[in-house]
């Protein structure tokens, strides 16, 4: 197969599932005639028809609510949030309805809510957010955030096949910047399993999304100085692959927790608590966090650059930790 971009991989995954299972359908703003604001659903309306590629009004709450209704009836809807930032408009439907049906009355809601998250594209506060933790904080949901072309395709397919509501955050910065050749055939990436993107012996960097690539860049530089980073890509934020995370900590004994999301209430805090609780005696240095600061995402390029974690941050902190 020819190489495809991260965005194309997601399209492929959805397309394949729609071919395979007639209960899968897509709904959202501009997904049909326009092919999606980022052209992710391009061609689907022509292939699958209006019934299965539904152009909706601007109604995130109703989009998710309708998807819930369809899922309760046994369909497998994929509700698109044009920018992940707008998912907040559907917060109530997602966290109070979709997430709790199975627990409250044994009813499964096999739906996917997906949208492009993340910054680095000069989008400002409402086109650059990382809203994942609001949903990680909600039992009953699953939350995934792929960092590679392969994982993007594998995880969207797994999400569609999952019996529970999955919130799928695709990183818009990676949409066209990553390109990979993918294997043929029908394959998925399991939800709930982290992935070692780079094995190393000195410092574990636990991260997800676009930051995975920054960590790998930093690792290449640090390797020249004999500091070997192990890069653990969470891939799934809920449920966490605690086993793999702790294995890495027990191996290197030094940890950096890295994410593009803001600091307070971010995934790093949750991971730090788990590591301190369950691997305290394996730590040869303090748990370090590298995150965005506690502000909305600013627009002007020098401000956004200050806001986002950089490779140089990772290199600096890794050196400090290695020498501790």
């Amino acid at each position: 197969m020819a190489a495809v971009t991260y965005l194309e991989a997601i399209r492929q995954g959805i397309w394949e599932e729609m071919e395979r299972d007639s209960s899968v359908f897509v709904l959202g703003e501009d997904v049909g005639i326009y092919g999606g604001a980022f052209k992710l659903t391009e061609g689907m309306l022509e292939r699958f028809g209006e019934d299965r590629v539904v152009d909706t009004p601007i109604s995130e709450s109703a989009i998710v609510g309708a998807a819930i209704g369809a899922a309760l009836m046994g369909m497998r809807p994929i509700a698109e949030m044009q920018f992940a930032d707008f998912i907040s408009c559907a917060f109530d439907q997602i966290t109070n309805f979709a997430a709790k049906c199975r627990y409250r009355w044994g009813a499964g809601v096999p739906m996917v809510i997906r949208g492009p998250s993340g910054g680095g594209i000069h989008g400002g506060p409402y086109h650059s957010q990382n809203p994942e933790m609001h949903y990680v904080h909600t039992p009953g949901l699953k939350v995934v955030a792929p960092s590679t072309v392969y994982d993007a395709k594998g995880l969207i397919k797994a999400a569609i096949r999952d019996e529970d509501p999955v919130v799928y955050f695709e990183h818009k910065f990676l949409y066209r910047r990553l390109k990979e050749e993918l294997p043929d055939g029908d394959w998925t990436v399991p939800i709930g399993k982290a992935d070692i993107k780079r094995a190393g012996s000195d410092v574990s960097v636990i991260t997800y999304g676009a930051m995975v690539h920054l960590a790998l860049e930093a690792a290449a530089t640090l390797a020249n100085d004999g500091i070997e980073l192990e890069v653990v890509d969470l891939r799934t934020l809920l449920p966490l692959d605690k086993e793999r995370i702790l294995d890495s900590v027990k191996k290197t004994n030094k940890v950096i927790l890295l994410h593009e999301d803001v600091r307070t209430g971010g995934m790093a805090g949750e991971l730090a608590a788990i590591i301190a609780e369950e691997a305290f005696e394996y730590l040869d240095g303090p748990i370090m966090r590298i995150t965005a600061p506690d502000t909305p995402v600013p627009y002007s390029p020098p401000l956004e650059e200050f806001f986002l974690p950089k490779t140089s941050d990772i290199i600096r902190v890794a050196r400090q930790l290695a020498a501790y």
Partner: protein
Amino acid sequence: MPSNVIMPQMGESIFEGTLTKWLKKVGEPVKRDEPLFEISTDKVDSEIPAPASGVLSEIRVNEGETVQINTVVGVISEEGTAASPAPAKAIIKEPSKPQAAQPVPEQPAEESEPEPEPLAAASRSVRSSPLVKRIAREEDVDLAHLEGTGLGGRITKKDILSHLSGRQSAEAPPPDSARPQGSSSDRSLAGSSEVVPMTAMRKSIAEHMLASRRISAHVTTVFEVDLTRIVNIKSQHAQEFLEREGGKLSYMPFFIKTVAGALKEFPVVNASISGTDIVYKKDVNIGVAVALDWGLIVPVVKNADEKSFLGIAKAASSLAERARQKKLAPEDVQGGTFTITNPGVFGSLFGSPIINQPQVAILCIGAITKRPVVINDAIAIRSMAYLTLTFDHRLIDGAVADHFMSSLKKKLEQWDEPLF
């Protein structure tokens, strides 16, 4: 069965109510769902129906009293039965107790993790880390005696691990002390398995093995040895040995004697590592691994190079006997400079044993079996055995190991020592 009449909760935030009026008197018959008393709360005034039929046998809360929700205000007994004696009633506002509607969180089940051993006072004042402290505890290291190369003189993982590899303290299994178990995620789930705590010996073997793997660079080399000569000598002298010494003649003394000789030829195999120093041991103390029902122990034949064959045979059998009877003294298991293990008696052909720290090599003797071999381009049936040497590549290179084994092989194949 008497039924308790309780002050109900009329609203989610309500925690008390005032009983304003009893609609029945004590001794009066009562029908289920019939209005029994009236209450007043912050939100609403209500008529409360009886929860059961019978006779109002007791009134515990009087008109005008304010009590907490779920307080028993009265008792309805079956006609003709007496009520049970009333316990003291709770009228006063107590500090908020959990409401019946909310489940009371259970106390954690009894702590199944044993208390970690308190750290030695000296190590507490030394800067290190949780990991280093744990290793220090497990390996019985006093951190106060270590130099730290980390930030601010901190003792790092590297520091303590290199200290351990050079340590001259007892090769014996570390002293038995309570060690913290692994994190809760290691613990096996009940249900389809049985959880049995380790014995002290098993714990110390486990720790020693793991530590050894961490410390040494384990490499293994295998040699095939023709033991026909020794097999013949043994069978020829078995009877005589039994009569003279009162014990069975075994293969082990042959091996111990030859190994002792080889170690004198290659002192580096009899050494140990201390930081970046090589410590050459003058004594050749050869430990022999003994498998017991309850574990594994390595008693040591001291100064094997100075003993005669007979001396070695006596020492070895005496140690084995004492091991089986749990009568070994500490000096019996201390001071070893090399170890021999003999799984051949159980049928193993060759193995990859773990070095007994702080030694740098271990010899594994496989089963002696008759095999067809080629000698001078003809096939002969010979008693063959595989000898495996696992050595620490930090100190011993492959060539050295192979030379050592070559020499050992030659000595064994050409045994010509007197037995007596």
